């Protein structure tokens, strides 16, 4: 298993640490990642105004951009490196959202590559719960999807000037249309846990999925 270690608390001033933590933690870096999806060409029309292409109803509303934001930096990370570090951490999250929900053609049952950036064990655990960790539960009934909200809020642990671990608070709201042109809204929220072991990988997750009528996620938030 793991080698023995010694962890010894040094007599330092925690108050100073907390103050510094608050100052650094308040430093937020915002990044918007315009994640192109395979959703239909953006159009200003609403979700309730689907058009028909090749006989199948599709959604033509504009897909929400993927917004990635650093909300807490616990430790030290040179300012000039933060944007690239955030992008590196967000990459496996974005990959999961694309392969597991947003990308590809519907209808479908399989979501290959959804866990490509998960550790092997985490991928195995996630595959067993694919009704939440992907769109497997609905995929076969949908002919099209479009994300209406995609946010990733990162909290990064960087104790020695290098990011070592991170929590990604994820919100994905997806509008799906069925063959009979009825609509359903899928919301996936929760956290992914990531560490940098070579590249950044997801080693854990705690997610929740809800279904509802279009707009129900925003109504619940109000």
């Amino acid at each position: 298993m793991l080698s023995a270690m010694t962890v010894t608390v040094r007599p330092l001033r925690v108050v100073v640490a907390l103050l510094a933590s608050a100052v650094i933690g308040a430093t937020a870096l915002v990044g918007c990642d315009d994640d192109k999806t395979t959703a239909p060409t953006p159009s200003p029309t609403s979700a309730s105004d689907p058009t028909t292409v090749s006989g199948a109803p599709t959604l033509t509303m504009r897909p929400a951009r993927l917004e990635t934001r650093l909300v807490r930096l616990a430790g030290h990370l040179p300012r000039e490196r933060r944007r690239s570090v955030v992008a590196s951490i967000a990459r496996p999250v974005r990959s999961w959202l694309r392969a597991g929900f947003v990308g590809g053609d519907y209808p479908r049952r399989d979501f290959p590559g959804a866990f490509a950036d998960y550790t092997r064990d985490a991928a195995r655990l996630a595959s067993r719960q694919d009704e939440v960790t992907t769109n497997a539960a609905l995929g076969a009934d949908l002919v099209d999807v479009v994300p209406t909200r995609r946010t990733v809020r990162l909290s990064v642990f960087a104790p020695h000037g290098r990011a070592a671990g991170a929590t990604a608070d994820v919100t994905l709201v997806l509008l799906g249309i069925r063959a009979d042109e009825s609509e359903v809204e899928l919301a996936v929220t929760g956290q992914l846990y990531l560490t940098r072991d070579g590249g950044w990988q997801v080693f854990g997750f705690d997610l929740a999925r809800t279904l509802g009528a279009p707009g129900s996620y925003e109504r619940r938030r109000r």
Partner: protein
Amino acid sequence: MNNVRARLRRWTVLGVVLAVVGLTVPDSATPRFDGSLVKVENARGLDTDPGVVWILALGSDARPGEPVLRSRADSIHLVGINPRTGHATIIGIPRDSYVDIPGYGRDKINAAMVYGGPQLEAAAVAGMMGITPDYVFTTSFWDFSRMVWSIGGVDVHSAHAFSEPLVTIREGVNHVNGVEALVFVRERYQLPNGDFDRSRNQGQFMVDGLRQVAGVAAESGGLERALWTFAKHTDIDVGPVELYRLARAVLQVDPQLVDNCVIDGGTTFAGGASVVLPDLGQARAYAQDAGSDATLASGCS
């Protein structure tokens, strides 16, 4: 004409009624039910070691100016956690347990840290319990206290009431700050079973402290903030990636699913000092029982 008047009267009455109703009944927006009932599906998973992770938690007896890692271990707990199930077992080892210390013969187990630091303390515990810890965590009085302050105190459950100057502990739940926490985990003279009850209290404090830490970690960035504070004030022999993963593993433990036991023993004298002859059969039984899943099928015997 009468018909017209009667019709006018009826319409007037109807109009008044409608007006009254219109004024007294709220509009349609007010009584709208804005609640919702939503089915939530959950998925959880964590890539951790498949077995039980064993952590040896030591409280050093070092006084100011004394080396924390080469002072006696005042509290000794072997903690097994099973991140997959959320179970954990805390086994308290009486500090005066008279056991074999590798390379030093028989002595009190808390002396092992003086002879050879946490590594030798871990070896002595392994010899006694049959379990080699994966990690050894050592803290001092003052840093334990500071850590409690940094997480906003702890709601600790006490089986006994006792008081010290300026600090009173009630039976039941007590919110303790860093100073009060130190009193709680150090008191033994006012407890019915002395050092055994103190060891049990220390285990209880770990359970309640975990509950508090979990609350902090549930906030956005809470774990990262707490870990950074921890890492900034600790000597850590593992990399930050492993530390981060270990923290996530520990947070999988459900405080409701923790067994907190203390190894029994009888008191005698050896070399002129009062020592405890630990029930080694019980110690091995605990270790064997909890070894595979961090649960004690029979609880604390």
